[in-house]
């Protein structure tokens, strides 16, 4: 038997006063007799009868104590364990703490997580001597909160400390963990209780365990912001892309507002409308918006508030700079023709001194040659040349290399056609990993994008004038794609506009520099930059604005939920694991039955009997 409110058990102390009152009430008369040994013998003669008589005489007292005990047990929420399994059990409780578990659609406005915790509490109470339970909290990754133990208090405390995180649900890693536990169980049956609303994809097959799915939640209709992005136009302008979706049977018809976080000032508002299950896409121009933290809000209310708000930190982008080194050619002279907003010298730089004097650049195009000491740059395009001392080497030349194949999905070669590419002569490149080859020929790569820690480089191993590449549509596409690809990545010191909650928040700092992060919920945390000069804060579990303080000054970062899987809040009656359907089994955690009602009924019966006895004795 266990108790929901064991604090009430202190009331059992009332039995003391009851017994005392009973015996005080009995008025035992003291009487001096010449000798009492004959009485002792008489008592001995009637001992058996006396026991029965005492019992009958004490019946009222016994009934009172019984009623008190029953009342206290009822108040304390006594529950009885109904487990009937004979052998000791190994139970893994998987508690979902993803964002959708924060929906308050339970009885009395309880959140799904609160209901899951209560169910987990029942399962813990149902543990018997020898049973062991492991508690695993899961969002997008599993976390073992308590390894296998029979300590109920420890399990209860760990469960009570679990909080909702603004993350999605992914059980695939949890299943890997569970598989290892099945192996470790060494033949013993492993019970897995999944306490979740079921908003997750098939995590993979889980054999050797008895899986019980205990679903929570009732609300199904929801609208939420599923995508948010700052699009920076080629000309430097920016706009905010917002996607709002309807989940469920109701159409979407809500106002999406853009607000400045400081002061909650409204900047702009648009109407979002979509049919049931549809999507509404909105753009907020940011040209006239001052940099700083912004909030996008889906006005109105629905059961899931976490996806009704999203945040970003809008920053003005510094212009990207480039330089062309070498003799130059007519096709690559002004890169801003491929991507507006780029700045660079109008003429190619013929010497390495001129290249150095050009100052820091983001991109260098090496046309036919590379100086012995090239300046550092995050991106480079090598046209019929390779950097000295690098892993990529030129091993001679090849003539008329035919195009064998090209990547149709890589961002750089996307939408480009290479089947009619003709090259008179090309360098035979070696040292490139196969994955970096974008256009291949039997004699070597014809286009490659190689990424290292220091640099992202596009290799064009042939002279443009000795090919038909500049005359093909693929050329401007590749150039534009490559420039977008180069500059879509942040430069050292660049800051992201927004994160999805759970993604690490990184800043480039001097080695040993300290980044202070104040999350939307919680207290300030200090992170020290490592040898690479990067300070990473990974506990971005909650959506909102993260206030930052670093040697460079104060700043901010934004994290948002932005997960379609979580926004689809309708509880699932089952989930699939490796194609095996696991139906909902709420009874898996109903090991204990609340005894309050039967206890109260028995107590009333006892009161009735006592009343009858009292009336008869009077």
């Amino acid at each position, binding site marked *: 038997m266990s108790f929901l409110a064991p604090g009430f058990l202190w009331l059992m102390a009332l039995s003391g006063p009851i017994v005392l009152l009973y015996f005080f009430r009995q008025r035992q008369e*003291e*009487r001096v007799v010449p000798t009492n040994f*004959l009485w002792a013998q*008489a008592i001995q*003669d009637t001992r058996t009868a006396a026991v029965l008589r005492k019992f009958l005489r004490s019946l009222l007292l016994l009934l009172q104590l019984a009623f008190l005990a029953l009342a206290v047990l009822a108040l304390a929420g006594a529950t009885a364990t109904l487990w009937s399994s004979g052998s000791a059990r190994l139970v893994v409780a998987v508690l979902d703490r993803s964002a959708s578990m924060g929906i308050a659609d339970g009885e009395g406005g309880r959140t799904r997580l609160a209901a899951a915790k209560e169910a987990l509490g029942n399962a813990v109470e149902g543990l018997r001597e020898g049973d062991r339970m492991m508690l695993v909290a899961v969002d997008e990754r599993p976390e073992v909160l308590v390894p296998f133990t029979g300590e109920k208090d420890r399990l209860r405390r760990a469960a009570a400390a679990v909080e909702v995180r603004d993350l999605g649900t992914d059980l695939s890693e949890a299943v890997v963990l569970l598989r290892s536990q099945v192996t470790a169980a060494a033949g013993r049956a492993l019970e897995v209780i999944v306490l979740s609303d079921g908003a997750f994809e098939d995590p993979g097959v889980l054999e050797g365990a008895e899986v019980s799915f205990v679903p929570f939640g009732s609300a199904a209709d929801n609208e939420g912001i599923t995508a948010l992005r700052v699009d920076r136009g080629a000309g430097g302008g920016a706009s905010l892309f917002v996607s709002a979706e309807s989940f469920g049977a109701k159409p979407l018809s809500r106002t999406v507002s853009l607000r400045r976080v400081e002061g909650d000032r409204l900047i702009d508002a648009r109407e979002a409308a979509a049919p049931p299950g549809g999507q509404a896409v909105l753009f907020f121009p940011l040209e006239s918006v001052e940099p700083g933290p912004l909030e996008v809000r889906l006005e109105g209310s629905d059961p899931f508030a976490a996806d009704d708000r999203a945040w970003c930190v809008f920053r003005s982008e510094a212009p990207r700079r480039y330089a062309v080194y070498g003799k130059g050619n007519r096709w690559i002279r002004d890169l801003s023709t491929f991507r507006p907003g780029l700045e660079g010298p109008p003429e190619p730089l013929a010497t390495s001194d001129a290249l150095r004097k050009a100052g820091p650049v983001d991109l260098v195009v090496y046309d036919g040659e590379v100086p012995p000491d090239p300046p550092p740059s995050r991106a480079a395009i090598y046209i019929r040349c390779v950097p000295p001392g690098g892993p990529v080497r030129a091993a001679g030349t090849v003539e008329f290399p035919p195009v064998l194949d090209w990547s149709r999905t890589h961002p750089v070669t996307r939408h480009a056609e290479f089947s009619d590419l003709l090259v008179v002569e090309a360098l035979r490149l070696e040292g490139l990993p196969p994955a970096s080859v974008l256009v291949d020929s039997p004699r070597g790569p014809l286009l490659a994008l190689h990424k290292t820690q220091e640099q992202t480089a596009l290799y064009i191993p042939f002279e443009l004038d000795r090919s038909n590449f500049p005359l093909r549509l693929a050329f401007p596409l590749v150039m534009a794609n490559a420039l977008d690809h180069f500059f879509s990545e942040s430069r050292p010191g660049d800051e992201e506009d927004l994160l999805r909650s759970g993604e690490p928040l990184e800043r480039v700092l001097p080695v040993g520099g300290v980044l202070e992060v104040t999350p939307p919920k919680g207290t300030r945390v200090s992170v020290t930059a490592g040898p690479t000069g990067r300070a990473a804060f990974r506990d971005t579990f909650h959506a909102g604005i993260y206030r930052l303080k670093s040697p460079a000054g104060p700043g901010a970062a934004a994290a948002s939920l932005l997960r379609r899987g979580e926004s689809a809040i309708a509880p699932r009656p089952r989930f699939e694991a490796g194609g095996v359907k696991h139906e909902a089994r709420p009874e898996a955690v109903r090991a204990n039955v609340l005894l309050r009602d039967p206890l109260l009924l028995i107590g009333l019966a006892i009161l009735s009997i006592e009343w009858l006895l009292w009336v008869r004795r009077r």
Partner: protein
Amino acid sequence: MPLLEKEFLKRLERLEIAARKVRRGVRRGERISRRRGSSVEFADHRQYSVGDDLRFLDWSVYARLDRLMVKLFHDEEDLAVHLLVDTSRSMDYGEPTKLLYALRVAAAIGYVALAGQCRVRPALLRAPDRIESPGYLRGMGSAERLLGFLERAGAEGPNGLRDGLRRLASEVRPKGVVVLVSDLMDRDGVDAALSALARNPGDLFAVQVLDPFETDPGIEGEFRLVDSEDGSRAEVSVTPEVLAAYRRRCGAYLAAVDGACRRRGIRRLETTTAVPFEKLVLEVLRTRGLLR
């Protein structure tokens, strides 16, 4: 208040101690001894033999039968009466108390004995083996001493019957009439005490004085019964069943005491303080052969 009223004392003077066994006394008294002596009460004849006092020859017999016969007379002796009173705390119970009743019984018997020229030795049996006694009293002049001694007696201590009687038997070894007045209530039994009493050669009487509560408590309910002698407590729920069991136990105990007395030649007289004292002395003691 005196133990015995004057009117009652006068009535006692008409009684005398009836001893079945007549023992040699130390002084001549009113008792007729079996010893043929020189009193005037004729007892028997016997053949004359040389040396007999010629004064006791019965000449009338010689005249009729021509035979020399000597007249024999009863010798008169005084009789010792030992009055043993149990003064344990169990005697201090009831209204009147058993002790008062016992003292009055002893006083009455003693007075009768003094009036009959017997030697009277009252004794109070105290625990553990102490005997309080003024010694032998003789003659009516000692009546006041006897009554005064008994009037001053109070109950104290536990039951000292067995040890007191043993000591009495070894030191005094009383002859004559020995009267023990006690409730004869002892959780260890009274066999040992009665055996000690039976070691005395005289006529042995045991007057067992009980309170009516002891034979028929007539109570019901929750009681903590405190033993008057050792203070022990017994918590008893007195119900009709327990009461019946008590009566059975009490009857069995008294029967056992009676049997023990019979086996030892002790004449036992059981009474309760509810029996009027005068009736006990003037009727019961006479019918039971202690007085006549």
